[in-house]
């Protein structure tokens, strides 16, 4: 940052500054400096925290809908693929990237692309399969510009290279969760949890004594449970919960 300081009104200092100013004027007349970046021939090197066009990794997505729920602009719709994946309406997106931050598996990520252009409004609804890689954009630039700040002075450093516009994926720790029973004493014995489980991760064993079924034993097969939470929502007595396992 450059701070403007009060000018010393002493003669020697004043002369020195005049000389400096003349020198600068002379220099700029011969080899002018620029503070503006000549986009699109040049492109500024954006930081890794840049909030640009959103990239999607379907392999990581668990279809939890969190991105769609958190979007303050209501730009995200879940669309039907093999399972629900997000689509982004860029007529609405405000680039807040709450979706990326809320994604529990890191399946959404930013890029350094800010210049996505569309020919029609309809095209601005970008579906999941259009987000899996960087969009093809016309790159006209020859230079990448770094802004260098040193002491009180800053300057633009032009390099004849193309910046990679992708941002490496954020490392997200996805904790493994499984369902457990928080209050067996309130279990109705309805077995709806076992019925709803898509992975057959909850088993029911009927215990018989003298040819009479006296109880059901419910068991979570921890290796099969993926922690989707369907059973938790199904349980009429709210006795199931998801717990993180190491």
């Amino acid at each position, binding site marked *: 940052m450059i701070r403007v300081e009060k000018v010393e009104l002493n003669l020697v200092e004043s002369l020195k500054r005049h000389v400096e100013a003349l020198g600068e004027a002379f220099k700029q007349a011969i080899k002018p400096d620029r503070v503006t970046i000549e986009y699109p021939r040049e492109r500024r090197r954006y930081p890794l925290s840049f909030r640009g066009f959103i990239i999607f990794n379907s392999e990581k997505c668990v279809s939890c809908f969190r991105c769609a729920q958190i979007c303050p602009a209501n730009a995200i719709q879940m669309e039907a693929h093999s399972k629900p994946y997000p689509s982004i309406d860029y007529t609405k997106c405000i680039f807040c990237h709450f979706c990326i931050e809320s994604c529990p598996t890191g399946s959404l990520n930013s890029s350094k692309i800010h210049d996505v252009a569309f020919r029609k409004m309809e095209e601005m609804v970008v579906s999941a399969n259009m987000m899996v890689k960087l969009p093809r954009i016309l790159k006209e630039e020859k230079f990448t510009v770094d802004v260098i700040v040193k002491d009180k002075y800053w300057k633009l450093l032009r390099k004849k290279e193309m910046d990679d516009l992708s941002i490496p994926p954020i490392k997200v720790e996805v904790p493994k969760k*499984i369902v*457990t*029973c*928080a*209050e*067996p*004493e*309130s*279990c*109705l*014995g*309805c*077995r*709806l949890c076992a019925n709803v489980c898509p992975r057959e991760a909850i088993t029911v064993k009927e*215990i018989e004594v003298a040819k*009479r*079924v*006296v*109880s*059901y*034993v*419910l*068991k*979570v097969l*921890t290796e099969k449970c993926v922690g989707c939470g369907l059973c938790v929502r199904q349980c*009429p*007595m*709210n*006795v199931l919960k998801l*717990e993180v*396992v190491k």
Partner: protein
Amino acid sequence: MITEWQSLLPEKKLEKKYFGILKEIVIDSKLCSHCAACAAVCPVDGISSGDQPIDFPNWTEKCVDCGACIKVCPRYDYKPLSGLGDYIEIFSGRSKRFVGQDGAMVSEITVSAIEMGLIEAAIFAGRSEDWSTKIVTIKSPEQLKNRKVTGTKYSYADVLIALKEAVLRYNSVGFVGTPCMISAVRKMQKTFKKFERVKLAIGLFCTENFYRHDLYDFLIEKKSVNLKNVVKTDIKKGKFIVTLKDGRKISFSVKELEEIVPSGCKVCQDFSAVESDVSVGSVGSEEGFSTVVVRSEAAKIVADYLKEKGYAEISQTSVDAIKKLCDYKVKIHPYPKKS
């Protein structure tokens, strides 16, 4: 981290799914009290209640055979309770804050319990314009200023269905119910831990209750009274009294209602709700006061609190008058039924 647990099943008295057993032994045998505890716990929401006999259409297919309904039914393995039961104290009271059926002590006890932090919410049976019952969850005193929320409705209400939803949401709840509902909740508490969250069970003195449509039709046909024009219904000294919007009162002997008394009430001998934390009724008190029978320690604390705060006017109770009605109910509702 519990990943393996057990749910015990009740013994099957018949070779049927559990609802089939409940249907044969309780409902078809005319023992059902219509407390709707079975409907409250049914995991597939298959059991219907409301203004019609308890039923589970399609039970042969849809019943998941968990036995929860049988576990909580107060009329399964029915052993009638009767008498005045155990109590710590009996007094008569008239609330200074609320207007209710008698002394509005039910409302007063509820609000005091919420104020003290004993309960977070309470389930009440309110009503709509046409006297169909409507469940209300009480969380603040203002709600009890509504005269449709306080006062007695002589028809079945789905209190326990709302109570089940409430225990999933709140850590401590209260409710108001007829003696059969109180007994049902005690059974629910014994079988399913979640219901321990019911911290205050306020029982009402009760001789019998009705299906709303029966009462509605009776009043129209026999008394030319439309319930929609009624502001209060009451039973006092053997008389059913309806107060109309224009202030007129019509009264007749409750014996005339005999034909519409549901069969399940005819086997009930519990007048004073002996299993409640506190029971409230009109018998035993002078006009405008409610009789309060404090049974549990928790209820005693609430009663002491509201007396200390001066929320209610306190008066004497005739215990003999209550006992007389307890005995009367046993007499008119013999069980096992004489055939």
